[in-house]
């Protein structure tokens, strides 16, 4: 066929082209298992372990459920419905909120930084897991922050890059195996924990490093888990893009992200309280012995790789969208490889990154809680679930989504407003709580204020001036 189109379904999957019906690969359970693979990544264990820093088993269990159900129920609706409906890449759709140039700013300032941060944590954990395996099998004494940890981290980055090169189909098949396997790992860990400790011992184990006020401790634990839930914002949209129905786009987030994340985090909480360490790589051999512990650590390493691939798949699509025709022309393998370079560099500082994980998680909420509020209000309330697909790809001044010079300052002001509210209630760097934080957290008000600001400013400024292609106010 001399005139066969060059842009196939595979090209749409790797790039910014809208996917067509026959290219939508994910049914309800495929999407669910991908989300399970994402949520029971070992960051769930680490978040559960971080929760154990401030609260015990009883408070921690409910902080995990409360934080995740609130954040995931808001974030999933804000991020999955539009890409699922239009089959259009998530960051292209965000042009309708931030403008074409605004999305470039968003990707450059937020998503790349957070994606690299998350992947660095996962790669370092991979490095520590494999170092622990080597220590257990050979009697070596590799320390938590020694060079072999970095070397193994770089190995995980290389494997992730190879998998990413194969695209979402490789991730789909890998997660069909790894997703259920991680649930088995969680169940196995629960058995091992309760095989060595009684519920009474776990329930009465003190938190690892609490603050003086128990109310502050509980809300910080909720806040960690709100942050963890909102932290899925950058990656879920581009997975939902391939779903076959609205139901398949939405509900797997409750089954695959919420339920799986809660299970993983509760296991992490109990293990951290039982063993007195928040680091999952320090639990497996003491719990399971050398053989079972080694198998568990190796499996954790594989799980981290699937998570890194999912994160970077979303970011690479965002880069292509943000960079327009220039990034579109860069070979996929080169683009993905270039993004892994800073992760590899950061892996040379394992202690500074990994041991401050809980601070990093708190920072993610400063960005993603307001983003969830703005995206929710813009798509569902202001646009009533309608986007002009053609205008998303139109860069000229006739585009509905040009706003002011390609940027929608209203959405950015709303994000800043939400972030300031967060900061006023809770300092993510020092974990100092202020005012009504102990009653309302920081992420929830930040999300609500950002959404409200976006609604009011859009109604007051954007719609009257005919910017943004919003339906006219009645």
């Amino acid at each position, binding site marked *: 066929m001399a005139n066969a189109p060059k842009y196939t379904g595979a090209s749409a999957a790797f790039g910014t*082209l809208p996917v067509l019906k026959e290219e*939508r690969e994910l049914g309800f359970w495929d999407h669910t298992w991908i989300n399970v693979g994402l949520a029971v990544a070992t960051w769930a264990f680490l978040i559960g372990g971080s929760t154990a820093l401030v609260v015990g088993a*009883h408070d921690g269990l409910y902080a995990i459920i*409360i934080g995740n159900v*609130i954040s995931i129920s808001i974030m999933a609706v804000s991020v999955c419905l539009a890409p699922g409906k239009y089959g259009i890449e998530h960051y292209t759709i965000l042009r309708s909120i931030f403008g074409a140039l605004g999305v470039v700013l968003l990707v450059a300032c937020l998503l790349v930084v957070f994606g690299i941060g998350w992947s660095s944590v996962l790669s370092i954990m991979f490095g520590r897991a494999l170092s622990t395996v080597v220590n257990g099998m050979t009697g070596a004494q590799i320390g938590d922050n020694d060079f072999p940890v970095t070397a193994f981290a770089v190995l995980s980055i290389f494997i992730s890059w190879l998998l990413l090169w194969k695209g979402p189909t490789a991730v789909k098949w890998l997660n069909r195996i790894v997703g259920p396997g991680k649930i088995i790992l969680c169940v196995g860990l629960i058995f091992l924990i309760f095989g060595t400790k009684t519920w009474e011992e776990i329930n009465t184990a003190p938190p690892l490093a609490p603050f003086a006020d128990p109310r502050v401790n509980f809300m910080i634990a909720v806040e960690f888990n709100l942050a963890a839930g909102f932290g899925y914002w950058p990656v879920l949209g581009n997975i939902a893009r391939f779903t076959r129905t*609205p139901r398949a786009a939405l509900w797997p987030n409750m089954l695959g992200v919420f339920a799986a994340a809660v299970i993983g985090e509760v296991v992490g909480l109990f293990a951290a309280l039982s063993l007195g360490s928040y680091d999952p790589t320090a639990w497996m051999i003491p719990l399971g012995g050398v053989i079972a512990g080694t198998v568990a650590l190796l499996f954790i390493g594989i799980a981290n790789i699937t998570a890194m691939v999912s994160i970077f798949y979303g970011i690479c699509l965002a880069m292509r969208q943000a960079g327009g025709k220039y990034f579109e022309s860069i070979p996929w393998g080169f683009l993905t490889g270039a993004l892994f370079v800073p992760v590899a560099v950061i892996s040379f500082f394992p202690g500074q990154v990994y041991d401050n994980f809980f601070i990093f998680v708190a920072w993610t909420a400063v960005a993603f809680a307001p983003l969830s509020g703005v995206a929710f209000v813009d798509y569902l309330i202001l646009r009533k679930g309608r986007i002009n697909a053609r205008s998303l790809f139109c860069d000229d001044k006739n585009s509905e989504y040009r706003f002011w010079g390609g940027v929608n300052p209203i959405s950015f002001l709303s994000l800043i407003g939400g972030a300031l509210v967060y900061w006023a209630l809770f300092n993510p760097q020092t974990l100092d709580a202020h005012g009504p934080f102990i009653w309302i957290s920081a992420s929830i008000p930040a999300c609500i204020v950002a959404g409200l600001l976006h609604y009011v400013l859009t109604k007051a400024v954007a719609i009257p001036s005919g910017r943004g292609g919003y339906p006219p106010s009645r």
Partner: protein
Amino acid sequence: MTTPSNSEEDEFKRELNRRLQIIGSADYNDPAMADIKTSELVLWYVVAAGILATALVLWIGGQ
């Protein structure tokens, strides 16, 4: 950074246009493009609120 040649760019635009025409066509029948039902969204938040309320009750009750 490489810059796409005009022919590549034209081909991309043609393919993009083809896909946008398909998606925008009244005859195009993709179940994914149906609006999510309001009842589905209500159920989503009822389930979420139920989980939240149960967790709060059990947390307070267990203190």
